[in-house]
């Protein structure tokens, strides 16, 4: 059975200009101890999807569909029930540690917060455990570090602290939102290494636009564009043999592939293009792409794509 089963999930935001369809009919499954990557460009709805699963969405969000976690529909839980699950069962590594950490709280206290809440530890025991967790994410001098503030940590160290907070209560499912953003190559590899280690017996959904990181860490990937999943499959099937013109374009825009940009801009999520959402930017667009919306079809074993070229 799948640990997480997202079925026909919609997340819409009403705004003055209209309804922003940030996540539109998304289906996504994650098995036990599987690492899944969610890739796509900025503004395609990756983070909103992650936030929707852990239900940290803005209160104005309109959500539909089902998010089954171990068979329970998270959308039917009360706020109280969700709170007891969040951090304990499902935890999230938020984007951008510099702004996500509380600047006026000691790092140790921020890790201990979850421990005291979910495991009922007292102050001293929580601090002790916080030191152990800091050690487990390879922070040297954890005993001194636990009493320091976030500004005393480097970018890579802060990312480690974020991971430590997320691991505090030993959750079985982790959502990591761009954990390697803004880190230099060496630090990035250390974080990748660490994430690999800590997720050995856990499931993770990693949101990223760094395809290299995805190849190193993920078993399967989902490619997202304008609120929809366009392609899914095993990581090397998708990135080694991309089918959707968007996935191909995305890979070709990497520096090591010649920096060839995809023409045009990503579409508005209020009024997405009719038919295939990618057709205005697509080189292979046919007449039918303008009017008909393609369905996800399995092209190869476990490799599905939303494109008429493979229908």
């Amino acid at each position: 059975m799948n640990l997480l089963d997202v079925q026909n999930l919609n997340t819409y935001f009403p705004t003055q200009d209209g309804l922003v369809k940030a996540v539109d009919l998304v289906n996504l499954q994650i098995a036990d101890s599987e690492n899944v990557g969610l890739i796509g460009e900025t503004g395609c709805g990756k983070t909103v999807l992650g936030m929707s699963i852990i239900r940290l969405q803005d209160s104005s969000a309109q959500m539909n569909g089902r998010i089954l976690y171990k068979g329970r529909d998270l959308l039917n839980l009360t706020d109280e029930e969700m709170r007891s699950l969040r951090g304990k069962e499902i935890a999230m590594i938020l984007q951008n540690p510099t702004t996500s950490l509380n600047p006026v709280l000691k790092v140790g206290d921020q890790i201990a917060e979850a421990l005291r809440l979910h495991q009922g530890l007292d102050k001293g025991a929580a601090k002790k455990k916080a030191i152990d967790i800091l050690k487990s994410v390879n922070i040297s001098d954890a005993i001194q570090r636990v009493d320091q503030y976030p500004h005393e940590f480097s970018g890579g160290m802060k990312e480690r602290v974020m991971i430590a907070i997320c691991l505090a209560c030993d959750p079985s499912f982790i959502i990591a939102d761009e954990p390697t953003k803004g880190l230099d190559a060496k630090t990035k590899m250390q974080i990748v290494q660490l994430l690999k280690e800590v997720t050995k017996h856990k499931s993770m959904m990693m949101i990223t636009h760094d395809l290299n990181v995805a190849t190193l860490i993920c078993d399967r990937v989902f490619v997202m564009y304008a609120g929809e999943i366009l392609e899914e499959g095993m990581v090397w099937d998708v990135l080694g043999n991309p089918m959707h013109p968007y996935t191909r374009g995305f890979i070709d825009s990497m520096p090591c592939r010649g920096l060839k940009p995809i023409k045009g801009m990503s579409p508005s999520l209020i009024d997405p293009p009719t038919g295939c959402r990618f057709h205005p930017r697509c080189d292979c667009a046919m007449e039918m792409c303008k009017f008909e919306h393609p369905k996800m079809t399995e092209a190869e074993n476990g490799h599905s794509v939303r494109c008429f070229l493979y229908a």
Partner: protein
Amino acid sequence: MIEVHDLKKHFSSGLFKKNYVKSVDGVSFHIEKGETLGLVGVSGCGKTTLGRLLLRLVEPTSGHILFDGVDITRLKQRDLRRIRPRMQMIFQDPDSSLNPRMKIGECIAEPFRLGLKGKLHKREIRERILELVDTVGLNPEHINRYPHQLSGGQNQRVVLARILAINPDFIVADEPTASLDVSVQAQILSLIQDLKNEFNLTLLFISHDMELVRHMSDRIAVMKCGRITDIDDVEKIFESHRDLISDSVISPLSAYKYDNLNIATVSELGTEVKASNR
């Protein structure tokens, strides 16, 4: 175009017992007109400080910078102000390099309002803005928006439009795509390339990503601990500086062949780093 002789910048701290950080420590090189020089190095090696020194955004401790034959390290503020429009900088983070309280249009119009391009009528300014906005691939509707209403990629386009409004000869691009994602990065960099060719700009392109620098540059300078250790044609640097390439870890998706290269695998790299931490 640019000549740098034995440039140094030491930052000092401490009141009685002085500690010096030698960010840039005796650097000499030149950049020809119309050339792109790539500047690579690990983070903290002094790349950004060097870039800022070239525009005299920080005062050098010693050394000379000749810009088109003029020693800008000796210029008085007033003369410096006169020469500054000819050199501009693209900063790392586009969102924080724009004034949040200025509309995009006002932002691009600022060089005109300051009279850098001679006296222009309001209508002429508006025409120029529309032209520039079009050149960098934005829509006219963006003119009345504020920076926070645009994405990072769009804001970097605004920065480019403003720089083009000044029409400089020399641009320092300090990791202009560090905060952007892959596909937007490709858009912005190809835009910079196009503009460079069209306006015959001279460029110093700072990055820690070897693959990016390879694409953008004619020559590459390698910086380590405040010094330039090597400066040569792109392919020669790739031949002789394998250590840097394996530092940045070859992408498994790379189109280039690195057959005879001893690439540090991820796990090796992890243990190597752990060892050095101890």
